[in-house]
């Protein structure tokens, strides 16, 4: 699936969603979970994942811990309290957005939710 342009806009929410479901995850684990859930349709690159993780951390949404696993340092990411709140909001917004897009793609006469809210 060539969905890079779609992934760019949704990666933050995907990460927040995965971390909301798991106490903590490390980078490789996130890429594997996304590949598994998308049945290998979405493969996150290092270049997409890590800058996003650092941005989320810089915004105070993620907190990190480092543990030694197999003789190497492994950095785990977890949601902060603020991150948990935002995750709920973003997941809800993305769900509504995908509903809207589905409605448009199904060529319905009018979507049953408004995009104005999204754009505001």
């Amino acid at each position: 699936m060539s969905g890079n342009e779609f992934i760019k806009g949704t990666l933050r929410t995907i990460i927040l969603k995965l971390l909301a479901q798991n106490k903590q995850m490390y980078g490789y684990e996130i890429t594997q979970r996304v590949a598994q859930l998308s049945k290998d349709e979405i493969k996150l690159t290092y270049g997409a994942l890590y800058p996003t993780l650092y941005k989320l951390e810089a915004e105070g949404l993620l907190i990190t811990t480092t543990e030694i696993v197999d003789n190497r340092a492994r950095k785990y990411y977890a949601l902060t309290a603020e991150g948990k709140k935002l995750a709920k909001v973003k997941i809800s917004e993305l769900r509504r957005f995908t509903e809207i897009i589905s409605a448009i793609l199904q060529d319905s006469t009018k979507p049953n939710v408004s995009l104005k809210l999204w754009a505001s």
Partner: protein
Amino acid sequence: MGKLTQAQREELRAFLVRQGLSFKPLQDEMFDHMSCDLEDRMSDGSSFHDAWHQSVAALPDNHFQNIQQDVMETINKQFTVSKGLSFAALGLLLISVVFKVLHLQFSGELLLVSFGLMAVALLTTSLSGISLNREKKGTIGLLAVVFGIIILMAGFSFKILHLPGADVFVITAVIVLIASLLANTLYVYQHASGKGNLLTFLHEKYTPGIERFLLLLLIPLAVYKMFTLVTGSSNFVGGLILLVVIYGAGLQLIAMSWRIMEKQPTKRNSTILIATIISFVCMTLPYLGPLLPVEARIAIIVVFNITASWLACNLDAGPRKVVPVILAIIVPIVFTSWAFIRLGFIPLSASVFFFNLPLLFLLVAGVFLTSKHGTMRAFMLISLAAYIFEYIR
């Protein structure tokens, strides 16, 4: 699941360094990611060779450099109150030196305000780190180190103002700093996973900022140096800048040693532990100044220099270690010779061999040549500042 051998790990680490990944936290993360990827492929039946080619073939050109650039932009964009205060402190420090050069009033007062801002920046950074990471341990250890640094600054501020009680502040600071650094070192040594240790976590997070701050301190230092070379006079205010650089870089080296002990089990041994303890004790004691006999201070500085050079070189994980090794040999020879001259074992006339411009340039070059060798760079900053401190006498 297939596991990488030590040789394969080294090959991977060298590959990441060749790819231009110099920011250590990100390099460690990419190392873990690629290790997991390779090990997964090897578990599926691939040889290391095949797994390597599949993994590397999937990477676009300059991939890691681009990631590092993105990550560094994110880190550098963060404007915090602490960052603002640090830059204000640096600016005032520079202005203070310029005022001194021009024989204007208030040079000392500006330096005091600069110290005050540095202390506030240190405190706000620490308190914000504690508040954001409540689940991590080591709050008291962190506050004790910060408290010690602030008392030391207060002690030297009292000296500038010729106020009574300066020595009491300095003695208290030295005791608090040695005790807190010892407690933190032993904690790191005993709880080596690195999980949840606030001090090393915050140090890793702020390392790019700390390095930048220490390098920027070289600007007022250079101005001060030129001033003293031209006028032939030195002063306590200028010397204090050097002391700030020496202790700042010294703490940087100690904190790096903690982090490496946490992350590399092979480096967590009693020799590194003892070298770390000797380094911070010998780095702190000379701040007692005239309270210690000058001969004792000289001996302590030499012990520090020899121990810290070994520690920095031993902990260094950067590429092409030839330069760090050469520097780790030359620098202690220079400082030991300096000590012999000061103690009268070598004639004073021999000073010209150990304090000259080519050696000064070598040390300056050493700071820049060790940009990818974190511990050695910290050691070179200490050595450069200490060299200048003695050179201008």
